């Protein structure tokens, strides 16, 4: 199956995106599995003008948006869920940094979080990020601008919070 290896090459990035979007490991894993299933079933209907990577991200994003509307949040405390995700690394410092960044992302509106994740973390060009979010490029840029303004503020405040925690 030719599509199998092509899809598999993107699965880990899809999972990272899903983890950062949901901040919930179980939800994220279900989302990734559903994405692979849908990609397989729609393989032949794929738009040829859109490369595979943004196509897969668009499927995941659409599934997430539709699931998000009827989601019942798991009864876990948000912090526990973040710890669960951060446990991916053995190094304490890496874990703390990962947690902090996830917390910062948590404080962004969903649209802005998605924009900054696709561009800054997944490295998609604006045009592809726009295709994933199904909005014009200008909208992606204004979301990025607003996301960055908030993140800059948080990063500034975050340094002091970090110091307090260490002390």
């Amino acid at each position, binding site marked *: 199956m030719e599509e199998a290896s092509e899809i*598999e090459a993107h699965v880990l990035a899809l999972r990272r995106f899903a983890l950062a979007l949901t901040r919930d490991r179980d939800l994220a894993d279900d989302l990734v599995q559903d994405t692979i299933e849908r990609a397989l079933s729609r393989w032949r209907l794929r738009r040829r003008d859109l490369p595979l990577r943004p196509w897969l991200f668009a499927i995941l994003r659409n599934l997430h948006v539709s699931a998000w509307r009827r989601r019942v949040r798991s009864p876990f405390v948000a912090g526990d869920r973040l710890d669960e995700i951060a446990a*991916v690394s053995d190094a304490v410092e890496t874990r703390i940094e990962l947690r902090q960044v996830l917390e910062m992302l948590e404080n962004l509106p969903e649209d802005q979080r998605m924009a900054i994740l696709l561009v800054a973390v997944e490295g998609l060009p604006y045009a592809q990020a726009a295709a994933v979010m199904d909005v014009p490029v200008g909208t992606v*840029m204004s979301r990025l601008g607003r996301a960055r303004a908030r993140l800059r503020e948080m990063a500034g405040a975050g340094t002091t919070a970090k110091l307090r925690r260490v002390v």
Partner: protein
Amino acid sequence: MKQSERSPNRPVGDDDLTAYVDGELSAERSAFVEAWLKDHSEASDRIEADRALNERLAGALAPLAETSLPARFRVENVENARRARRMARFNRIAAAFALLLAGAAGGWLANGWSRAQGPDGHLVADAVTAHRLFVAEKRHPVEVSADAKDHLGAWLGNRIGRPVEIPDLSPQGLTLVGGRLLPGENGPSGQIMYQNAAGERVTLYLQAGSGSESAFAFSGTGEAQALAWRSPELAFVLTGPLGREQLVTIAHAIYHGDAR
């Protein structure tokens, strides 16, 4: 309008600064913005902060995509899980369908060959009665024997009022014994009898049709299963001590021969 179509020296805007951070500007425009930033330290600081932010986000989240591939995400496993779910659904439907069939068969058993059973109940009842009566006959099972096959078809056709062709069922292992004319509730009926190598007898009961078609409908008890259907010309009931699958195969042969 695309960035490239506009003058590279137009005033620098927020959109330029955003695009500059992400390397989305053309080389020309990028150089212009870079020169502009030298005289605008506040914007320049912001760009530095945004670039640092990009790096921080990418660096912090990198470990999430550096794990080994979990087995559940192997495309092959996803595909298998999907197939298994589909099979489970199919089996549930098949089981429900089997229950339905069993229920219908149970209804027949409870009613015997009730005349009230279904629209073709009387037809099936007549056919099965005739089947039971004549297959037991050793010396006179038929009125017209197989060697007058063409005459049998013409004769039955004349009496029933519809063209009748005697189906050749030798590919199904059935030899023609012959046929007879019978009285029926809706006028004259015909019975054509066949026999297999084991001496088991199968009859095809024919009556004038009503112009409409119907699907195969099963009914029957262990020793005499019946399968009824209608073509626009004729109503058919195939009866015999065979399994349902065998009867369906034979009925298909008759149906397709009839349609030819």
